[in-house]
């Protein structure tokens, strides 16, 4: 059997990252706790190196390698770069937090880099097998990260829930994939797509497979009615890990939706559109309404994530190139906002104290007007108030939905995001109109404060000049 050596160049970032994970793992063994910063710097350098390589090997036309299992295209490049960026920001934000809680260990960085590897595999997957393996690498690393604080029973409980429900979701996804293989005889997205194009889309086995795949994806995304794990995991995990879970993996989840539903099963659009509409509507309603009742900020942001996932799906539901690029814009913007919001909780926390209740934000304006302003921008952006970037993100997905004639869906989404604005504004009310209970000055390392400020300013600036990022998202969509 003739076999051609695959072209390794498109996968250079992945190969580099895996090599560096091993290097970090071994180097960390020889470091004492005092020199642990070397691991941190090495991890940041790894992300930087992977980013440089990703830019170097980028290709405008999709490039396939490893027998068509790996694809390197514009969307992959952009999403990977944002995954590196948000992971690097997570490292900066969480450094002091982890040190104070005795979690600043090599394992944290190794596991986080492993999950970045899983995300990259998912982003570049063109085969059911690789998408599944990437997802497993990501989930396993995240579960271990959630449980990293071993002495905390709430973290262990969160990790257990995450693990068990994640396993059920993987089972669903795998069963759907096996049905898909049974129906089409292939694991390759391109071949599956051409099979569906030739045959009838009414094949009952394909529909059956689709149901399981959509359920599996909804589980992983944390969309209603498969969202039960999200608040518990967000609350139970150490805030630094919650920060990570809520940012980069969401970008990877978007890539998974694109690769699996759009590129692989695009021919079944009429079927998964209806399923996603139900899931998106339920997510937007439940996320926004239940968030109002929360007093814990991490739980509140978890429910807000659920509603944002609903919005993100709206872009995919549209089924048009505009819709996909709007979805991509939304997920990148969401990652930015999520970093800012959870970063603020980390900034206000200190040794032995978690600023994760709404009460802790009371009178933040008196303690630090600048960071109160940053939080104000973030909350406005999450609620979708102009001129922040969150407004444009919502506008883009809504106009994509209106374009295909689903006006009722857009109206419903707007109504519930107005309801959702209540709990974002409540945070602002606490910060500006209530007296501070806790008057400890805001500490935090200089790099964290600088990046935090940049994060908030970018949310505002992107809101004023959103065209660049929108154009980027449009240009990489087929």
């Amino acid at each position: 059997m003739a076999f051609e050596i695959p072209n390794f160049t498109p996968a250079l970032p992945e190969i580099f990252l895996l090599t560096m994970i091993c290097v970090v793992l071994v180097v960390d063994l020889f470091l004492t706790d005092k020199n642990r910063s070397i691991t941190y710097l090495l991890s940041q350098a790894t992300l930087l190196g992977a980013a440089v390589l990703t830019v170097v090997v980028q290709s405008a036309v999709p490039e396939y390698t490893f027998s068509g299992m790996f694809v390197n295209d514009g969307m992959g490049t952009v999403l990977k770069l944002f995954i590196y960026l948000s992971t690097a920001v997570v490292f900066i934000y969480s450094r002091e937090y982890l040190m104070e809680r005795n979690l600043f260990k090599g394992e944290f960085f190794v596991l986080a880099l492993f999950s970045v590897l899983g995300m990259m595999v998912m982003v570049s997957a063109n085969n059911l097998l690789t998408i599944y393996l990437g997802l497993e690498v990501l989930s396993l690393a995240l579960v271990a990260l959630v449980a990293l604080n071993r002495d905390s029973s709430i973290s262990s409980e969160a990790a257990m829930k995450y693990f068990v429900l994640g396993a059920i979701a993987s089972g669903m996804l795998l069963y759907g994939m096996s049905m898909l293989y049974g129906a089409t005889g292939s694991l390759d997205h391109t071949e599956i797509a051409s099979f569906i194009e030739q045959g009838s889309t009414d094949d009952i086995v394909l529909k059956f497979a689709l149901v399981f795949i959509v359920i599996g994806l909804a589980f992983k995304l944390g969309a209603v009615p498969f969202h039960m794990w999200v608040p518990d995991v967000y609350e139970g995990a150490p805030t630094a890990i919650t920060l990570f879970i809520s940012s980069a993996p969401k970008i990877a989840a978007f890539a998974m939706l694109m690769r699996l539903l759009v590129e692989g099963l695009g021919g079944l659009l009429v079927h998964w559109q209806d399923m996603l509409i139900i899931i998106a509507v339920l997510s937007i309603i439940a996320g926004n309404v239940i968030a109002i009742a929360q007093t814990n900020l991490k739980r509140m942001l978890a429910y807000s994530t659920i509603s944002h996932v609903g919005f993100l799906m709206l872009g995919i539901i549209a089924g048009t190139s505009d819709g996909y690029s709007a979805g991509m814009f939304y997920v990148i913007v969401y990652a930015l906002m999520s970093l800012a919001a959870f970063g603020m909780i980390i900034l206000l926390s200190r040794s032995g104290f978690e600023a994760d209740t709404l009460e802790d934000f009371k009178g933040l304006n008196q303690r630090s007007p600048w960071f109160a302003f940053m939080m104000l921008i973030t909350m406005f952006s999450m609620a979708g108030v102009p001129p922040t970037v969150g407004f444009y993100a919502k506008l883009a997905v809504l106009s994509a939905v209106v374009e295909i004639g689903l006006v009722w869906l857009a109206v419903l989404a707007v109504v519930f995001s107005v309801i959702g604005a209540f709990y974002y504004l409540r945070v602002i009310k606490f910060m500006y109109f209530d007296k501070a209970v806790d008057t400890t000055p805001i500490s935090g390392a200089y790099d964290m404060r600088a990046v935090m400020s940049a994060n908030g300013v970018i949310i505002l600036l992107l809101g004023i000049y959103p065209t660049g990022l929108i154009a980027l998202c449009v240009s990489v969509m087929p």
Partner: protein
Amino acid sequence: MMSIEPVLFYIFSTILVIAAAAVVTVRNPVYAALCLVLAFFTCAAIWLMLEAEFLALVLILVYVGAVMVLFLFVIMMLDINLARSKEGFIKYLPAGGFVALLIFIEMCIVLGPENFGIEVTGEPLKHAADYSNTKELGVTLYTQYVYPFEIAGALLLLAIVAAIALTMRKRPDSKYQDPAMQVAVRREDRVRIVKMATEKKQ
């Protein structure tokens, strides 16, 4: 004349289904694990009939030989509270049973002969006696599927790192020997000569 294959298939699959059902219904977890072993065995027999000899043997060697034995050890070591795990069984039975029944009916409709019958899929290829299943599998695995194979390797490394990170802890109160220190010990470290005045008998 009816061939022996369908007869064997029905025997093995009946045992497989019964064993699989027993895994989740028997009360004693040790029995459940043993039923799972039986399920693996019959499954391997079915794979053998499909000419997937290598996979069938690996299933027995790895899953029955290694994984399930470990499982049995764990089950026997742990004191599993059976009453608690059965809690709420009756309460959730109607809803759970209904959903399970619904999925079962759907699966019967979809997986029936009109979609996966031998007329649709065609008869499985029969190979000559000198056909090496293992070689074919190896060639495919290390050429066409080398990328997923490598990711699976990374996944295993991750699993090791995660397991060690979550379970290994240095306990400050645990006593252990350091041979280097034992060798380097000096008399002054162990013996202290105390000068004291002679005590008088009272």
